């Protein structure tokens, strides 16, 4: 068994504060759940959908793409190699389950989608607070009846998910390239929109595109801060209007190690070797990316505000504007919205509305206020599809105009 228990080591957790505050108020009771994010190749997505339907969870699907590096010999036998990026369409399933069931659900999905084979997908779970009408549940009978093997040996702990929201078009590509060069993981790119800057302007806003490219990277926790720093430097996120970056903890996950396609110099790729050692050592703690020089830099923590919170809202498209405006009133800015499709449990469930998942990163001191405001305005009590997730974000970087 693994000895590492990531979240519990944290001294201060804003999401736990939210939980305490809301429990004390007694109006809304947050549920402590695990949010499972499962990113699979489009070709396997049907299998996963069927499983999730049987499991009886409400999942929200989003389209995205994995970026891999392809190395090919040059044409006409010319010397050298041609390195390019290949986009692979993937479906992202997000759903919440009671924390005690998350491991078994993950095991089952790994088995269903054969995710332990590199190149098929990534799955990870994050512990968070959820506000919703009904407590998330799974079809226990179905889950108990499944017979799948225990995938503890391939599941990694102490991971973190770094989310980069990029404003300039095409920058997703360069970030993905940077991540692949660093050998981090297969980057996931999705499209979203953010209107914060635009909404502040008059008609001149047409010059600013609302479209954002969002890159999700899952990596060992101890690496994340230095990686964020490298990415900020590479993408010049320290300039205004370029985007922002933050990190959220992942309790366990299985990462796709199929980073590079093509000619291979050695018997195994470096990613395969790392994965094998991870498995032997039961974790990623052995990995050391930083040298002494970087260690020194690490002590300068000026860049990152600590103890932020990621609040994500899943709601009807129309309501999301109201919720976002409410957030703005209490000083939470920079929400990014992505279109999601609810995975209907039954085919004849009727017409569902258009859903949006909107994520916002807020400093710890206003988290309570934002959650209060959102809960006040939301229709969580009536609408079974609306959800608010509160999740710690130990490091974030947003450029602030002075």
């Amino acid at each position: 068994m693994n000895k590492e228990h990531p979240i519990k080591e944290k001294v201060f957790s804003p999401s736990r504060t939210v939980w305490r505050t809301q429990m004390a108020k007694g109006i809304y009771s947050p549920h402590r759940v695990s949010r499972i994010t499962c990113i699979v190749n489009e070709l396997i997505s049907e299998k996963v959908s069927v499983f999730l339907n049987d499991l009886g969870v409400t999942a929200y699907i989003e389209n995205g793409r994995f970026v891999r590096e392809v190395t090919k010999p040059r044409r006409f036998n010319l010397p050298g190699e041609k390195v390019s990026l290949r986009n692979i369409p993937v479906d992202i399933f997000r759903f919440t389950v009671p924390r005690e069931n998350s491991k078994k659900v993950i095991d089952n999905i790994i088995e269903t989608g054969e995710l332990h084979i590199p190149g098929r997908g990534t799955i990870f779970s994050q512990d968070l607070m959820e506000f919703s009408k009904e407590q998330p549940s799974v079809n226990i009978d179905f889950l108990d009846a499944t017979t799948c093997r225990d995938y503890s040996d391939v599941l990694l702990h102490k991971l973190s998910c770094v989310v980069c929201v990029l404003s300039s078009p095409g920058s997703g590509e360069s970030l993905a390239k940077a991540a692949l060069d660093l050998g981090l993981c297969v980057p996931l790119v999705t499209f979203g929109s953010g209107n914060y800057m635009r909404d502040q302007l008059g008609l001149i806003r047409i010059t600013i595109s609302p479209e954002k490219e969002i890159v999700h990277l899952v990596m060992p926790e101890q690496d994340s801060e230095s990686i964020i720093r490298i990415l900020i430097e590479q993408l010049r996120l320290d300039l205004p209007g370029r985007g922002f970056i933050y990190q959220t903890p992942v309790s366990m996950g299985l990462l796709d190690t199929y980073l590079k396609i093509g000619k291979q110099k050695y018997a195994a790729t470096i990613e395969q070797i790392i994965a094998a050692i991870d498995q032997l050592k039961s974790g990623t703690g052995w990995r050391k990316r930083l040298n002494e020089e970087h260690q020194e830099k690490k002590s300068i923590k000026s860049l990152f505000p600590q103890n932020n919170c990621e609040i994500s809202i899943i709601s009807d498209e129309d309501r999301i504007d109201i919720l976002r405006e409410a957030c703005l009133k209490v000083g939470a800015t920079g929400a990014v919205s992505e279109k999601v499709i609810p995975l209907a449990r039954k085919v004849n469930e009727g017409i569902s509305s258009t859903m949006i998942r909107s994520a916002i990163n807020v400093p710890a001191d206003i988290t309570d206020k934002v959650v209060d405001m959102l809960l006040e305005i939301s229709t969580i009590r009536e609408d079974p599809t609306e959800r608010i997730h509160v999740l710690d974000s130990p490091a974030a970087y947003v450029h602030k105009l002075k």
Partner: protein
Amino acid sequence: MKHKKVPLRDALVMLSGYARSRIIAQIRSVAFIIIYLIIFQVLILRVPLSNALLTAGGIGLVITGLTFFLEGLVLGFMPLGERVGVKLPARAGILVISVFGLILGFVATLAEPAITALRTAGSTVTAWEAPLLYLILHDYAEWLILSVGIGVGVAVAMGMFRFYYNLSIKPFILIIIPVLLIISLFFVSDGNLERIIGLAWDCGAVTTGAVTVPLVLALGIGISRAAGKGKSTGSGFGIVLLASALPVLAVYILSFILNFRAPEPSSEVEFFSAKERKKSLILFGNEEQLRRYAFTHGTEKGRISYFNNVESYQSAILSLNNDPATRSSLLGNLPVEDWIINNASETEREMLSYLKLTTENNKTGSVGKTFALEAYNGARAVIPLSLLLLIVLTGFLREKIRYKDEVFLGIVFTLIGMILLTSGIKLGLATLGGDVGAQLPRAFAHEDKFIERIVINNFDKSLLYTTISTDGTHKSYFNFNDNGTILPVEFIEDQFNEAGRTYEHIITSPPLFRRKLSVLGIFLVLIFAYGLGYGATMAEPALNAMGITVEGITVGTIKKAQLVQIVSLGVGSGMLLGLCRILFNLPLVWFIIPSYILLILLTIFSDEELTAIAWDSGGVTTGPVTVPLVLAMGLSISGEMNIPDGFGLLAMASALPIISVLLYGLLIKAKQRRSILLRRNTVANE
């Protein structure tokens, strides 16, 4: 929310950056076609650019127009369409949605300026060779547009129905397309109906224009988002396909009905003969119009056949000069000089030889007039559709429009863009394309090509001078003053009319290659067609709008530039095939049926989303940039080859891109599948 004030300087910086990026993108998209046309004209055909200034101005307008138009779509039309699509299923039942779709499709077709292009394609059709086609294009033109409108309306309604109930697109393709193919086959056996096939398929290609497509796409995406469950509906694509296919069916039905009225095709002499008069009069309201048609479109044989005896024929010809009433009855608005130059035979010309002829070189149409006409067309294309959407959204759905000012600006941009684009094409691009197109038949011609006939009045033989060549032969020449340029012209006795003292100066251009090299010429023409199709499609705004949508829906897995490239390659190949059919005068069905059978096979093996995207990109390709250029070329070549109509090019230019996109999709999917299976096998082996 209160808006922050942006200082003027900052605003200007923001605006200039924004405008620059958009304009550069459009310059890139039209660069190929412009450079290609100029290179072809100047370097290969060796014809100087006529009116280079106007052409350059026109090209500038095209670029500005495209920039405004595309930005307008992105700001105004597409968000508006998607909003209506998202809200409709929540507030209205399927019946209301279908009725809305029907109205929208209908209005969109009536607003479509490209549909008038079909008349141009059919302008060379003669009433005796293809009576039914003539009947439909002239007497029943409104019916044609109406039936195409109904076709598109039903298509949009059907598309919405499909999204509402999450139906797959494949059954629609696998039923509708074979039905169309079978009808086409059936039509081949009838002389009259056979001629309709080109028109019908071209109608399907043309109806889905630059405004309609992005709107319908946005609407489809909205509806499938609101009504969709999971990812089963192809994400909003597929309406354009239906809107390209159903009008074909509608035109087939219309022509089948009208075929009972139309006379059989006949020879010109028969057609104008008194015996057949009754039948011929079906196509023309009265004798006068038939007679006028014999003069304006027929040849000498037809006219003689019409008058039945030579005397009355001759007196009619002679009266062209002396009797203004008869002249206007016989020629309509056509000046008698033009008639003599363009329509009259040698004998007829001699009969009227005493007539003093003046030719005016008044080719440059007024720029102002072009703008006014295009402004009217643009307004017709943009305003009814935006009003319909706004009324439905605010009046019927009672929805507020987010970013009202932006949407309004978008609509204004679309309108401005449309006007600038179409005027620019008329003034610049089409002139350029037309010039090349007109010269193109020289590439495979055996003889000198007739360019122009100039009549010199009061010709004085004393102006002639004699020249001598190395072998001692003498030739007579005179100097011709062409707007200040002095040109030595060889004097040919036959072209001098003693009685009228007129000299007909005929300007010709020699064939590009020597007689033996006509295969090379044909090859050159085909290459030209390929490049023209490729380049024009790259600049097509509807395709660019669709590219943006596809890139968004597939989260960049299929990039806009990739889609545009693949579709353009497809259109290029389509043009090549379409031109082959014109050059070798082959029946259109020989091309349509095999391509669509291939398409059906590819469709069966492709996945849902890509099928819809591929079939939609077929409909998108024929828009305001492609149609005028393609028609200019098609007509000039079909005119040269004496082929009655220039139909079929657009149909092929729509079919081939579907094949190229489907093939590309299958290739990508195969790669993906292989990489997954390969990995699984490796792990299994371990």
